[in-house]
């Protein structure tokens, strides 16, 4: 067991604790960025002018009419930028564009005494456009050959040879939709100028350091002139990894130009129409199976719909390609990946970061092929699970692959799956208009940033003379419970009660050069950094205590606020007195901690290496009931076993698993991004741009029975206190819902019906799927789905 993963006795990590801010949340006293406005004097409010075209050149911009609106103080345009007019890290995202690249693109911003005046001022701005041809769908971009960034190629084994030899070869095409983050708190920033030209920005950001860097380069100042603080976010999910930077920069620019605090908070429609989303993808594939149902070869071309600029599309694509195998051993693989450029919002990180999209390709493929191969989909999936001797297509050994089998077996047993399958068969036999189905799907998800450099973190731990502890780290809190875990890590390492430790908000003048709180890595990286800082302090205090106790420093133990020797008869000192004694001995009572993940290497060009510290595993079974009249469905039961290592905080981890699952189910079944793809006047406009039209899962989508268990005996040697990351992997457990819907739709047709199911599988999509299945068994006519038709070439069995 490594020093990093080893837990002391009576550890505070591992206790099921509620969120550290729970009491503040429930009483409305937890502060979010926009709650600070009323606590700040003389605030100006910002409102954007948004493009009504998907693609157009700006011929003229007349801002003078805005100044005629009472209350308008300043209109910000590109001419005001003292530094670089860019909001991204790829330098392809002008903060104030000359050419609008998507419907809703912000052209300029109006600052006013009230939000109402800013809104009216924005409406008064006159913009003359020259509309330009636009590409709205990924298919249009592929047809036009309009790609951006670097395409990637991943290959292992002999794909052509394996396909030629395979007794069953299928090919298919599958295009699937993205997802709006719909964090409940929209993007917000509040900027003010401190003395000496120092800029202070409160931002709802997952990546304060990068927000700081963008603000600095827009203002043309060095990073040390800008401080960014994030108290907490009302949800992030990846949507605040890159998107907040430009908004923070606008607020900061306004503050420097007016000398007054500037508040920028997007309303929901602005947030949905201006910020990036989960990438939709297009895929084409060929797959070969042997006679035993083993997937022996996969050849796929996947195209991410990147939107108008690169943003994080390249690493998203890399992760998608690295997860196209999901949990399955495929000896011969070739994947070509590319990024389409379309006139839409610039798609970005979203929980899973391409992983879900890669996995969806293989899960869809297995779901479609199983009936054609004559296999129960559950059996087909189980047969293809990785075993411990296997490596991934990019050459990384699948360590702990046996946990897949362990999770699978536990779900099978605890979920009573075999018996329920029999019950479902009986139910379906007697219910012509209602069908049920159960599906099981696995998850294997690589943990670490694909880009090795991001796998570092810092922390700052202070112990005050009274023994109280203040910790600070580079991670941000967005609801995932990171701060709760960090408090537990510090309390465990210092051996003090949790109540002695307090956490200060994340800000860039405490810990510099931080990585985004992303890639599920927040607890792994920051936890290890905090542990490192605490260990430095503890080692110094061991010396002090050893002197007072007259024992060897190595024998000093810190437990529950008491400091004592190893032996039974040892004297006991209180933590507080050791701390105070240390102060008088002039011992440093604070420390900066640092951590870098060891053992990672990745050749991005060759797409080979070991980019991940470890894999997180899980298995889910979902049972659905589908109404044959409407395609409406219910999620009757979900059983999950998920591997979080030795949990740092079980209640938090449970919440991540359940919440991730439901969010994934929303992506796959309900949430519907509808862009205007017509040639009409609103081409490129997002039609589902409000909560009334873009539907998230609500209480009615919660599984009626929801059983989640953490895999036992799951110690992870490579991570802090033996734990594993949990933020993203559970989202992909929701494939089980989609596959169950496919199987229920198939149950309306004769045995062996292969169902082609669009994503999202809305009630309408399910209706058309089951209607097609049904018309296989009788001669009733059927209509065609509104959604994209998909070609499916049947078995080329020979």
């Amino acid at each position: 067991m490594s020093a990093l993963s080893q837990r002391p006795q009576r550890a505070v990590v591992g206790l099921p604790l509620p969120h550290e801010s729970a009491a503040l949340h429930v009483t409305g006293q937890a502060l979010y960025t926009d709650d600070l406005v009323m606590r700040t004097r003389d605030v100006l409010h910002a409102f954007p002018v948004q493009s009504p075209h998907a693609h157009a050149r700006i011929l003229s911009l007349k801002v003078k009419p805005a100044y005629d609106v009472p209350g308008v103080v300043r209109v910000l345009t590109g001419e005001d930028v003292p530094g670089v007019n860019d909001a991204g890290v790829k330098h392809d995202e002008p903060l104030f564009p000359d050419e609008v690249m998507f419907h809703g693109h912000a052209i300029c911003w109006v600052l006013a005494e009230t939000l109402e005046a800013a809104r009216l001022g924005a409406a008064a701005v006159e913009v003359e456009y020259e509309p330009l041809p636009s590409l709205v769908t990924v298919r249009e971009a592929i047809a036009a050959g309009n790609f951006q960034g670097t395409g990637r190629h991943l290959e292992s084994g002999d794909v052509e040879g394996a396909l030629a030899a395979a007794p069953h070869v299928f090919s298919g095409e599958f295009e699937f939709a993205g997802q709006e983050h719909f964090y409940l708190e929209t993007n917000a920033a509040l900027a003010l100028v401190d003395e000496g030209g120092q800029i202070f920005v409160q931002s709802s950001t997952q990546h304060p350091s990068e927000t700081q860097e963008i603000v600095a380069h827009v203002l043309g100042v060095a990073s040390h002139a800008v401080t960014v603080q994030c108290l907490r976010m009302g949800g992030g999910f990846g949507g605040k990894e890159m998107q907040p930077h430009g908004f923070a920069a606008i607020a900061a620019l306004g503050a420097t130009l007016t000398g007054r605090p500037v508040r920028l908070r997007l309303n929901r429609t602005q947030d949905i129409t201006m910020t990036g989303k989960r990438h939709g993808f297009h895929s084409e594939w060929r797959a070969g199976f042997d006679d035993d149902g083993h997937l022996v070869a996969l050849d796929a071309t996947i195209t991410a719909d990147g939107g108008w600029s690169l943003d994080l599309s390249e690493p998203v694509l890399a992760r998608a390609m690295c997860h196209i195998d999901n949990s399955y051993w495929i000896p011969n693989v070739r994947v070509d990946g590319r990024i389409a450029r379309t006139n839409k919002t610039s798609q970005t990180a979203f929980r899973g970061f391409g992983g879900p999209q890669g996995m969806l390709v293989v899960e869809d493929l297995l779901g479609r092929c199983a009936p054609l191969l004559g296999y129960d989909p559950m059996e087909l999936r189980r047969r293809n699970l990785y075993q411990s001797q296997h490596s991934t297509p990019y050459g990384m050994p699948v360590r702990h692959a046996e946990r897949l089998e362990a999770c699978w077996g536990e779900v099978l047993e605890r979920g009573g799956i075999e018996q329920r399958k029999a019950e479902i068969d009986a139910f379906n036999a007697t219910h012509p208009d209602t069908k049920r189905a159960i599906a099981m799907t696995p998850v294997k998800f690589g943990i670490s940033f694909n880009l090795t450099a991001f796998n570092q973190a810092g922390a700052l731990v202070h112990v005050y003379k009274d023994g109280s502890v203040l910790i600070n780290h580079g991670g941000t809190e967005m609801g995932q419970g990171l701060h709760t875990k960090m408090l537990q890590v510090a309390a465990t390492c210092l051996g003090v009660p949790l109540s002695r430790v307090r956490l200060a908000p994340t800000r860039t003048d405490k810990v510099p050069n931080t990585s985004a709180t992303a890639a599920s890595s927040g607890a792994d990286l920051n936890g290890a950094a905090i542990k490192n800082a605490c260990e430095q302090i503890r080692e110094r205090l061991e010396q002090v205590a050893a002197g007072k106790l007259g024992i060897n420093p190595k024998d000093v133990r810190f437990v529950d606020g008491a400091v004592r020797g190893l032996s039974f008869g040892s004297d006991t000192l209180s933590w507080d007195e050791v701390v105070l004694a240390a102060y008088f001995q002039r011992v440093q009572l604070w420390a900066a901690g640092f951590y870098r993940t060891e053992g990672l290497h990745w050749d991005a060009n060759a797409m080979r290496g070991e980019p991940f510290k470890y894999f997180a595993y899980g298995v889910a079974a979902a049972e659905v009931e589908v109404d044959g009249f409407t395609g409406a469905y219910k999620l009757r039961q979900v059983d999950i076993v998920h591997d979080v290592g030795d949990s740092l905080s079980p209640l938090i981890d449970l919440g991540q698993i359940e919440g991730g699952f439901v969010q994934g189910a929303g992506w796959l079944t309900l949430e519907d991004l509808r862009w205007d793809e017509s040639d009409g006047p609103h081409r490129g406009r997002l039609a589902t741009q409000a909560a009334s039209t873009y539907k998230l899962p609500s209480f009615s989508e919660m599984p009626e029975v929801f059983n989640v268990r953490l895999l036992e005996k799951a110690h992870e040697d490579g991570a802090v206190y033996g734990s594993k990351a949990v933020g993203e992997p559970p989202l992909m457990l929701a494939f089980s819902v989609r596959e169950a819907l496919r199987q229920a739709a198939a149950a309306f047709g004769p045995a062996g019906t292969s169902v082609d199911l669009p994503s999202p599988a809305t009630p309408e999509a399910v209706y058309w799927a089951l209607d097609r299945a049904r018309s296989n068994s009788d001669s009733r006519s059927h209509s065609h789905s509104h959604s994209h038709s998909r070609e499916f070439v049947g078995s080329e069995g020979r």
Partner: protein
Amino acid sequence: MSTPQTLRAAAVKVNGKDTRLDGVPVHTTLLDWLRDRGLTGAKEGCAEGECGACSVLVARPGIDSPTEWTAVNACLLPAAALDGQEIITSEGLGSPAELHPVQEEMAVRGGSQCGFCTPGFVCSMAAEYYRPARTPCAGDHEHGPNGFDLHALSGNLCRCTGYRPIRDAAYALGVPEENDALAARRSSPPPAAAATRLSFDGAEFLRPASLDDVLGLLAERPDARIVAGSTDVGVEVNLRGVRAPLVVAVDRLAELREFEVGTDEIRIGAALTLSELERLLDGRVPLLGQLFPQFASRLIRNGATIGGNLGTGSPIGDTPPALLALDASLVLASHRGERVVALSDYFTGYRETLKAPDELIRAVLIPLPLASMTAFHKIAKRRFDDISSVAVGYAVEVADGVVSQARIGLGGVAATPLRAHATEDALIGKPWTEVSVREAAAVMASEGTPMDDHRASASYRSAMLGQSLLRFYAQQLSPEGVSA
């Protein structure tokens, strides 16, 4: 006409403290007003009454007790509409040192993750906690053993938890303690509706004291914007920037809140909220009983009135298809007098109706007896809190195996709600059998002129019409055999 005199200063009692309302723009929402006063617990998540992050409690006239704590969307109500009223926010329920029982359960069970939706959930949950008629029951998929009705939370969205811990918190709630001040408050009357006149920057908000005052005002100012629950007007204000020069609140007028079950008809005051109506009818009109839980969310139903749902003239309102099937008519009132119009004549075009600019819907009349076979079908993406792509109301009578009467109301398939006359004709006089129902279903699939939009394709809407009739038939044969 007489106008209300404001002798007292307009004010709202917020968390027990009188807070002045003057100097506030007329369109200012209750949410913005609260936040401007430092009560930032309530949040804006959507500004259209869909997410519930802004939920607060209002002391409203009750049915089971003099006052009931009612959860509403603060983002939709104009602050001026709360003049003289009492509200409680998450900050007023409890503090971190002294959590309210609802807050305690939410906190310890992992009911909050990012916490942004949490104050709203807490308020919606507290309203159900204090519901006088909540008593322990067997429980089912939508009710806890403590009688907690999950529909109370149907208007609150959470993006983090997946809802299970929130449900568990709700189902773990006990009953209020003896010394619970909010529980005690229920046994005395709610604040009376305050006659209000507020003006700001040329715009005015009026709450007249009587119907005659309103009708007189409408005669003079047909441009006046009538507001009851503000669940539609509030969206126009927030999302479309509509700023009416004159807003007239009518939701508390006694003349609009009548409820009478006679021998020939049921008379429903137009300003009764959907929530009140659900409880007043208490299952007496099974068709409406099926409709209510599917109508938006509890938060919306607590504000939305039946008159408002008809007044907008929307083709996708949920009550018109049901009321068309029930053969309802409307009482329209103006200073010129009253008239009764059949609902089937009322809708004249897209968001256009027979109602003259100076008229107000006073009541809805439902003739008795009711048909013996009725149903309401709503096709939507989401089961709770969604807008229908297709809605169908049925009222069918079968005598000696033959359809003697059939009224079918449709929503979402044309510019107005409409009756499926061709389908009705295809059913009446035919035997109530699968064969004739299938023939009628084919007719029904071609009713209306459905469109493609983001909710559904035209072909799905048409298919759903035909399928709906088949489903109605199947439900009548075997209620358990068909998915709800």
